[in-house]
């Protein structure tokens, strides 16, 4: 019912004549522009593990990822490689290459032995390149790829007197190639309709495998793309269903939620060691992992309802997390599954230590930061930035000892109409989580005063954080935001107008399926929008490039 209403509104507003809403099938909606996305740190590491095995170490520092509009997946389509970043890629690539051809690994990773260790062996170099090249570049090799790299490898052998130095060069050249470091999407005109492009099968293969596995296409998918199977609905469905059934789906789901939850921010998380002696790098790492485990267990292993993530009592625990959650942990090492008892305040994701430590200050909790994160990332609602010229002098009462709790202090802010507009969006949710301190420990008092965690989520009153979780799970926009996040994550940009129809359809499908993530992922992967494109890149971005070209021209004229 909800779906139908929304769809009617949309039809009335934007597409009065084009579509017939209420029909059951997916809309024939054209996708937006294609993207060129830089591999994230996780994707780079996964590629090395997939192609060379988990023993190969990846040592080095990655250029920081760039979060745009809430997602690194969107930011990755705007970043490039800076000089410092390139130095790092080259050093990492060379270090990986050295390990791959080392005595320890060549037996497994190099499919042949050269006639002589000191002389070129073009056939063996080619066999090696054919083995690792397609997986790294995510496409079959061309004749010229092979000729140029084998020739360069031969020259390297002449120079160094070592056959394996040639293979090392081949590996490094693949690992610094823009075709490895960036996922380049290609789209070409389809049929006679002007302006409608279809992404080519290899591009579609990469889109699928990064969405579902957060990795490059495997051999089976590459072959399917090469045969043209992905152009038919049956062929595509066969691959999508194979990938959804694979254990690697857990990697994809994990990466999706790491991004939505902004877990890359753990890298720079620090806490005051005097106020929070319980905090350590290990605690932070385990808190992050705990949340991802709960997500994968609930959504992938149990194929549960997404909304129940916010009310579930099931969790996983380590020794390091024990003191934060004030629970005994039997195992000295590793993870143990556990369930919080009925009535325990640890209900759902919002009660996890991860969110509560990440969205807080080094020395205290922050209702506003928590509320802002939840509005923006979990409900897809914009929170305007604080106005620059607020007279904070009004709130210098903050230090006044009569204001003991965060609620007391924030209520002072809410007395000002300029502040109230945004703080009313963030604070009621955040105040519901004030029972968790700056590292996520449960507490009932602050500075000796009892904490009142009651509030109201968009008209749904709650008495404490448990009820907040329940109100959250029942929020009518929770599913719509999941759809929005998954789609933006899948295509690396905001949806364009034509894709809005798809998003409405997806919301309906999600609701019908009782909020099963697998159903949503399958619908996205099979959708017309996912396989089509409007243009190589939107116009607006071109102005940025014009400016870059202008800046370079100026430099050259000097």
């Amino acid at each position, binding site marked *: 019912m909800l779906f139908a209403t929304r769809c009617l509104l949309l039809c009335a507003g934007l597409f009065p004549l084009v579509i017939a809403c209420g029909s059951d099938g997916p809309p024939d909606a054209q996708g937006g*522009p294609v993207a*060129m996305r830089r591999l994230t740190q996780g994707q780079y590491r996964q590629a090395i593990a997939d192609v060379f095995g988990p023993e190969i170490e990846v040592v080095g520092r990655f*250029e*920081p990822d*760039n979060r745009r509009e809430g997602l690194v997946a969107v930011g990755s389509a*705007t*970043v*490039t*490689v*800076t*000089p*410092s*970043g*390139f130095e790092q890629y*080259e050093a990492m690539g060379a270090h990986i290459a050295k390990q791959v051809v080392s005595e320890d690994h060549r037996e497994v990773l190099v499919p042949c032995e050269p006639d002589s260790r000191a002389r070129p062996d073009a056939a063996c170099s080619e066999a090696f390149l054919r083995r690792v090249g397609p997986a790294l570049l995510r496409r079959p090799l061309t004749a010229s790829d092979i000729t*140029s*790299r084998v020739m*360069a490898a031969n020259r390297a052998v002449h*120079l*160094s007197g070592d056959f394996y130095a040639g293979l*090392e*060069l081949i590996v*490094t*050249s693949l690992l*610094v*190639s*823009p075709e490895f470091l960036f996922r*380049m999407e290609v789209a070409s005109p389809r049929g006679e309709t002007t302006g409608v492009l279809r992404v080519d099968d290899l591009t579609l293969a990469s889109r699928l495998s990064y969405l579902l596995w957060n990795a490059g296409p495997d051999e089976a998918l590459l072959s399917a793309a090469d045969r043209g199977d992905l152009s038919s609905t049956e062929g595509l469905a066969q691959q999508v269903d194979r990938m959804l059934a694979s254990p690697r789906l857990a990697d994809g789901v994990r990466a999706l939620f790491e991004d939505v939850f902004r877990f890359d921010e753990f890298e*720079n998380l620090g806490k*005051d*060691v*005097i*106020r929070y002696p319980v905090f350590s790098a290990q605690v932070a790492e385990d808190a992050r992992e705990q949340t991802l485990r709960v997500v994968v267990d609930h959504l992938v292993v149990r194929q549960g309802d997404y909304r129940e993530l916010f009310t579930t009592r099931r969790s996983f625990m380590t020794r390091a997390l024990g003191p934060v959650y004030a629970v005994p942990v039997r195992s000295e090492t590793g993870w143990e599954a556990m369930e919080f008892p009925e009535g325990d305040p640890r209900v759902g994701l919002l009660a996890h230590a991860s969110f509560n430590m990440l969205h807080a*200050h*080094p*020395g*205290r909790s922050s209702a506003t930061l928590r509320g802002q994160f939840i509005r923006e990332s979990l409900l897809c609602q914009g929170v305007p*930035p*604080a106005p*620059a*010229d607020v007279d*904070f*002098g009004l*709130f*210098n*009462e*903050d*230090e006044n000892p009569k204001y003991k709790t965060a609620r007391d202090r924030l209520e002072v802010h809410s007395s000002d109409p300029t502040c109230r507009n945004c703080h009313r969006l963030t604070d009621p949710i955040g105040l519901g989580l004030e029972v968790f301190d700056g590292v996520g420990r449960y507490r009932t008092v602050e500075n000796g005063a009892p904490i009142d965690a009651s509030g109201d989520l968009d008209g749904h009153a709650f008495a404490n954080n448990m009820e907040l979780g329940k109100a959250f799970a029942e929020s009518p926009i929770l599913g719509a935001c999941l759809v929005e996040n998954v789609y933006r994550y899948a295509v690396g940009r905001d949806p364009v107008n034509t894709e809005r129809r798809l998003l409405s359809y997806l919301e309906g499908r999600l609701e019908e399926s009782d909020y099963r993530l697998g159903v949503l992922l399958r619908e996205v992967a099979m959708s017309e929008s996912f396989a089509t494109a409007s243009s*190589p*890149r939107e116009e607006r*971005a*071109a102005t*940025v*490039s014009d*400016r*870059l*070209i202008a*800046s*370079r021209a100026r430099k050259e004229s*000097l």
Partner: protein
Amino acid sequence: MTPAITRRGFLRKSLRGTFGGAALAVGLPYLEVFLNSNGDALAATGAPLPRRFGTWFFGCGMNPNRWNPKEEGRDFALPPELQPIARVREHISVISGLSVLLAGETNFVHRTGVMGTLCGGAPPTPNENAGPTLDVLISDVAGGATRFRSLEMAAHGVAKDSYSRRSENVINPSEPTPLSLYSRVFGPGFNDPNAGEFEPDPKTLLRKSVLSLVSEDRSRIEAQLGQADRARLDEYFTSLRQLERQLELQLSAPPPLEACEIPRQPEETPVSQDVAHVVRNHQLMAQVLALALACDQTRVFNMVFSAGASGLHLPGSSDTHHTLTHEEARDPALGYQPEATRFVIHGMEAWATFVETLESVPEGDGTLLDHSVVMAHSETSDANSHSVTGLPIMLAGRAGGRLLPGVHVGGGGETTARVGLTLQQVMGLNVASWGTQANRTSRPISEVLA
């Protein structure tokens, strides 16, 4: 405090501290081996000593009425928040009262002030700047000759906090630790200009051929891309060429450089936003940087002492520098926020240390600082109200005789782009005016010019 030990350092007048039991039996080359008879150019190449440009950023500004000097010119009294620079004041000009002129643009908090000063105009949107930052403009011209176009550092340990940006899509990340800075500059790939014997590493040729191989694919890849992505790919290839340039430099013997010393590898230090850690890491980074400059590994650098909306923190406190600037009560007797202001003092002390470190390296007939100019700046003046009016700016060094330090210039509410224009001209860029819209200016700050 243990300054990095250098061969030349122990001769120095001002390099303070003890040197433990380090063996000091090091032969020193005569000055004339390196310099021409005037002492202002390198004997080996006849080239003048290089001129360096750097920025030094501190977050969350200052208290204008306690930081801005009252008198203009040379004889100005140091106000309370500038007291920490007393020991190096002869090397520093203070420029107060310049602003990023908003002229209708939004003041994006903690962003407009810094990007406005560095790009010559208020940023039009949260994801766009008025242009490339000053250091990028300068390194495009002055950075080509050295191994690194520029070096970025963040003493508070956050690599993504960097204000060196060609655009918001091309942000040059900061080295987050003294050790990472050291390894990047003095690790593998460093050729000691004074080593005497030189033998290129044959591996360098192999590394170069990897890069040529990748470049062969450029036009094929480009053909598939739209215009915006082509510009991003272009940036990728600019970065690739920079590494090619590094490798070329490694294949030939570098000219000897009298001031160049190899610092001792810094120990691994704790990295956090605790002031004590930041101060220590900043000092170690400054020492490595000074010698990186003396060894002519780069001529452009950007140091972040604390980021905009500074997260600097004192152990045991529930607050950070940033939260204090908004939430601490102004002490009615003092008229300012005492806790927040402690961080301003820490920042100014660190700035003095930085200037002192560059000054402690002798070069030619003066010091490294004499052949450099460093602009200290912040994203705000009064952080409590996010003010971008009357921003604190300081210039240290003589830029090879083009600047006269030691003065205070009151800017009278004009644009900070005047500083950027001055610095581009001082660094030899052929620019008559700079900045966008209300911030466009053709008036350099003549009071600081020699």
